[in-house]
């Protein structure tokens, strides 16, 4: 085509487009002058008008964005995510991909689960940290461990889990032709694992054959415990629709309350277990659904009654009829109403055991329980089926308590109490449960509040010890979750119901002291510990309380003494505590590291640097072995780095600090306060080495993190300002230095008592700056006051006092008062 002709066509089409369609024919008649071919061409283009309206209006990029994203998410073998080397992709789910990876630090295989875009990193992480502790605490032979999690360099959050080499439970049963009895026994192990998690207040929420693997040894392992919940707040807030869609894609194992978007509970897990059991027995799903469309499946789950397993084609040939017990058991687990199902996974498992042993099963008695609970509902009494069960259990508990203190009975009691908690958690009638506003999840606090409410309503006049015990458990739980005021209330109630000076009462007081101190009432807490420690020592010797309680009491009193400024007394208490916790159980390991960490700080306070470094090295070495991929390890490294700085071993200090920095950035992201603290300590070390530019850079990063997360009330904020001021001063930027240091002093004065050593240090730094500016008259009172405060509280040999002394020497030298300079120089330990 000639360009002239092309231009003519374009021109005429454009002009025709500017006219209303009815006028176009007339316009073209005139314009084409009988050129039929030209006119055909133009009309053919104009015919596209409607179709072309929306055509390519959206930029090309958006068409492929999703695909690019999908593809960008895939990792390749050999790629490193943190310390984990990708081996291969082993699965893809709604949340993201799962990779087999090698932990290069511990040389073991792990499963690494990447969380797809859409879960905002910062918020996700905050939530993750809260729950991680609980999930990582699930140690059960049939539950795959959650080792931890982190943030990849591109911002993608990930979990690291125990890698299970195994087959899906349904495939395993099909391929290995497991007998009915074997299937039921395998399934009971699954129930036991679920029950264990429920006792730890963790709901799975996504139980299905794909999440239940059987190892070559025939042991079932549950994957992804609690992960679904971990992600939920993000999903409801951000990507509601996407996730709804994801949830719809495999709803077969979801409970009615789940597909209706209602609150989930342990009963939802019981339901999912029922579906899994149904499938293991029949090889089929409970509902015959014509279509596979999400809304059809949802309707079936929410409304249709499942067929009796015995009416379906059996999955196993050698099985006796499923009629009777097994039908009843499966259907009881699959009830639409959560409160009509088994009260717990343990109960479901127990019923299967009874069936296997030919005993009558609970499932038959269902109608009675149901009628009873309906009666209660009619009478508008707010109790649940779980409460009924609880009341029946009471007799057993009381008898146990009265009879004796034998170990196995104590264990039975503990189990009964745990049962109460998990039953309370199980209690999910939407009309009476803790109803939160839409899109909110039930937190552990909600569950505890509910249990507490219910406990207050029960009548325990015959057995106050049981109520005390339950109150004490609730108090401990609140305490561990950081709800100190409610914890205190519950612990005081527990104390009222316990015999004075009994071992139980002493244990409660240990926690009570913690709750009190955590609310800032240090003197009151200290008084309490001073009272109970002699009794604890006596009872520990007579073996009535175990060493942990005494150790924790000593630790807490030690912390309080140190806060009071008496590090020497704190040291003695902590040494005694450390000696008590010598066994290697997991629980005492974490207590030990806290005790040792605190002891190290008291050693530092007193200038016993060498011993502090030595103790801290032990801690680092231990953690490097046991948990190198944790923020705690980073914390220990940071501590060691800071002590080495004090000692003047700068190269080693910097190595430890930067190793910790890397761990923090990987696990905690770039905004965490711990990272801020680490950078501050690096700045301090660099300042001492006179590497001022680098120090300046680090301290600016520190202050940025502090400002973003907290502000002046954070204890180390003023410390960071002090370091920044000293760096400025050393750089010769004395005006800026003075300004920053005056800020630091002001913040200390606003937040701490004048005689606190931190306040004294800030005034000393300002004094140093004024000395540099030759404003000796202003510097002298500040430096003298800083010196005497520090000397009084820390002793003359303390490194902080030494710095203050050094500053005085420098002042007197600068203003030419040699005698004074000499007097203070004589107090320096190493000139």
């Amino acid at each position, binding site marked *: *085509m000639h*360009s002239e002709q*092309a231009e003519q066509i*374009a021109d005429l*089409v*454009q002009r025709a*487009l500017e006219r209303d369609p009815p006028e176009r024919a007339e316009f073209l008649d005139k314009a084409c002058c009988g050129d039929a071919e030209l006119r055909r061409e133009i009309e*053919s*283009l*104009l*015919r*596209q*008008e409607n*179709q*072309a309206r*929306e*055509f*390519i*209006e*959206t*930029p*090309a*990029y*958006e*068409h*492929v*964005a999703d*695909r*690019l*994203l999908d*593809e*960008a*998410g895939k990792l390749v073998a050999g790629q490193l995510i943190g310390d984990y080397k990708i081996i291969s992709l082993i699965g893809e789910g709604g949340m993201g991909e799962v990779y087999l990876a090698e932990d290069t630090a511990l040389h073991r295989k792990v499963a690494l689960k990447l969380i797809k*875009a*859409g879960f905002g*990193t910062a918020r996700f992480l905050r939530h993750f940290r809260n729950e991680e502790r609980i999930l990582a605490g699930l140690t059960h032979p049939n539950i795959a461990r959650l080792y931890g999690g982190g943030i990849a360099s*591109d*911002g*993608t959050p990930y979990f690291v889990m125990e890698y299970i080499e195994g087959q899906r439970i349904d495939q395993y049963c099909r391929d290995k032709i497991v007998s009915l009895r074997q299937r039921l026994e395998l399934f009971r192990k699954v129930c036991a694992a679920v029950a264990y998690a429920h006792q730890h207040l963790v709901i799975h929420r996504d139980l299905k054959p794909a999440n239940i693997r059987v190892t070559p040894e025939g042991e079932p392992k549950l994957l992804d415990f609690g992960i679904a919940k971990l992600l939920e707040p993000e999903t409801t807030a*951000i*990507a509601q629709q996407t996730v709804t*869609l994801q949830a719809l*894609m495999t709803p077969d194992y979801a409970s009615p309350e789940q597909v209706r978007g209602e609150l989930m509970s342990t009963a939802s897990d019981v339901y999912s277990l029922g579906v899994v059991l149904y499938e293991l027995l029949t090889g089929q799903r409970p509902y015959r659904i014509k279509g596979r*469309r*999400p*809304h059809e499946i949802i309707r079936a789950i929410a409304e249709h009654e499942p067929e009796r397993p015995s009416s379906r084609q059996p999955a196993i040939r050698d099985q006796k009829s499923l009629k009777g017990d097994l039908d009843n058991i499966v259907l009881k687990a699959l009830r639409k109403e959560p409160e009509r199902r088994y009260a717990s996974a343990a109960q479901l498992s127990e019923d299967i055991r009874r069936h296997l042993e030919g005993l009558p099963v609970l499932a038959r008695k269902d109608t009675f329980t149901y009628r009873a609970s309906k009666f209660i509902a009619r009478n508008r009494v707010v109790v649940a089926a779980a409460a009924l069960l609880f009341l029946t259990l009471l007799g057993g508990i009381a008898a146990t308590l009265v009879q004796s203190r034998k170990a196995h009975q104590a264990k039975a009691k503990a189990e009964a109490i745990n049962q109460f908690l998990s039953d309370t958690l199980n209690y999910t009638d939407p009309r009476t449960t803790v109803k939160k506003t839409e899109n909110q999840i039930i937190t552990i606090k909600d569950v505890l509040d509910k249990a507490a409410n219910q406990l207050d309503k029960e009548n325990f006049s015959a057995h106050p010890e049981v109520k005390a015990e339950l109150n004490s458990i609730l108090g401990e739980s609140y305490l561990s979750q950081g709800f100190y005021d409610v914890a205190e209330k519950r612990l005081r109630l527990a104390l009222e119901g316990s015999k004075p000076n009994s071992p139980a009462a002493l244990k409660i007081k240990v926690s009570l002291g913690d709750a009190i101190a955590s609310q800032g009432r240090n003197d009151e807490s200290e008084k309490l510990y001073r009272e109970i420690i002699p009794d604890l020592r006596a009872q520990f010797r007579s073996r009535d309380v175990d060493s942990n309680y005494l150790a924790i009491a000593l630790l807490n009193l030690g912390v309080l003494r140190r806060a009071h400024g008496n590090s020497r007394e704190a040291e003695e208490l902590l040494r005694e505590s450390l000696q008590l916790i010598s066994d290697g159980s997991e629980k005492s390991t974490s207590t030990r590291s806290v005790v040792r960490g605190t002891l190290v700080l008291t050693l530092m306070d007193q200038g016993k640097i060498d011993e502090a470094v030595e103790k801290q090295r032990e801690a680092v070495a231990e953690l490097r072995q046991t948990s190198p991929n944790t923020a705690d390890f980073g914390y220990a490294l940071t501590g060691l780095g800071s002590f080495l700085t004090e000692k003047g071993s700068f190269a080693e200090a910097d190595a430890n600090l930067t190793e910790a920095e890397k761990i923090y950035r990987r696990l905690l992201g770039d905004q965490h306060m711990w990272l801020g603290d680490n950078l501050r300590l690096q700045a301090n070390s660099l300042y001492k080495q006179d590497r001022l530019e680098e120090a300046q850079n680090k301290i600016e990063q520190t202050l940025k993190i502090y400002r973003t997360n907290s502000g002046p009330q954070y204890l180390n904020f003023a410390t960071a300002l002090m370091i920044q001021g000293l760096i400025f001063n050393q750089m010769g930027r004395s005006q800026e230095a003075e300004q920053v240091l005056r800020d630091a002093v002001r913040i200390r004065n606003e937040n701490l008592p004048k005689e606190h050593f931190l306040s004294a240090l800030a005034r000393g730094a300002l004094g140093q700056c004024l000395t540099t500016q030759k404003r000796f008259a202003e510097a002298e009172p500040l430096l003298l006051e800083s010196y005497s405060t520090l000397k009084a509280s820390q002793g003359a040999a303390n490194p902080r006092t030494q710095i203050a002394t050094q500053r005085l020497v420098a002042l007197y030298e600068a203003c030419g008062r040699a005698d004074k300079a000499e007097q203070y120089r004589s107090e320096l330990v190493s000139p």
Partner: protein
Amino acid sequence: MEKTPDDVTELLLKWQEGDDDVSARLMPLVYEELRRLARNYLQRERADHTLQPTALVHEAYLRMVDSKSVTWKDRAHFYGIAARLMRRILVDHARTHNAAKRGGLEQKLILEEAHDLPAEAPVELVALDSALEDFARSYPRKSEVVELKFFGGLQAREISEVLQVSEKTVLRDWNFAKLWLCRALSENAL
């Protein structure tokens, strides 16, 4: 992944001088960077699902090119280059992945059928690209408008600055090009 700005800058300069071999070496670098940025963007802005290709290209450019040693004659040149890059990247990507992904896409459509499908049917980028090539033979400037708007994500006003024509001309060009390309693609499909 470690590419210094120097590499890219040098390659861009050569490319600009007409050395077409360079683009083969340049593409993967810029592509990687764009992909990375795209991922970050999507992660951050998933909620409202806004993605600004211009911003993306601009950011990639700033990161990869040492602007001090490259003296772009004007803004126009930069956007021209960016849009061309985007076109190459996106079309290449579509070409290599279409076949493999088709099965997955169909499945996705079935799963989503209970929900609203996007009002606009997906564009077959490879076909569009070759149609645009044909179009450019008769209408070089108009095809540039398409490149800048569809691939580069530019607004009419920006395009008018780049091509030194009025905004009205840009819109007329655009409307005509859409008719032409739309017809070319529907003929193709028959």
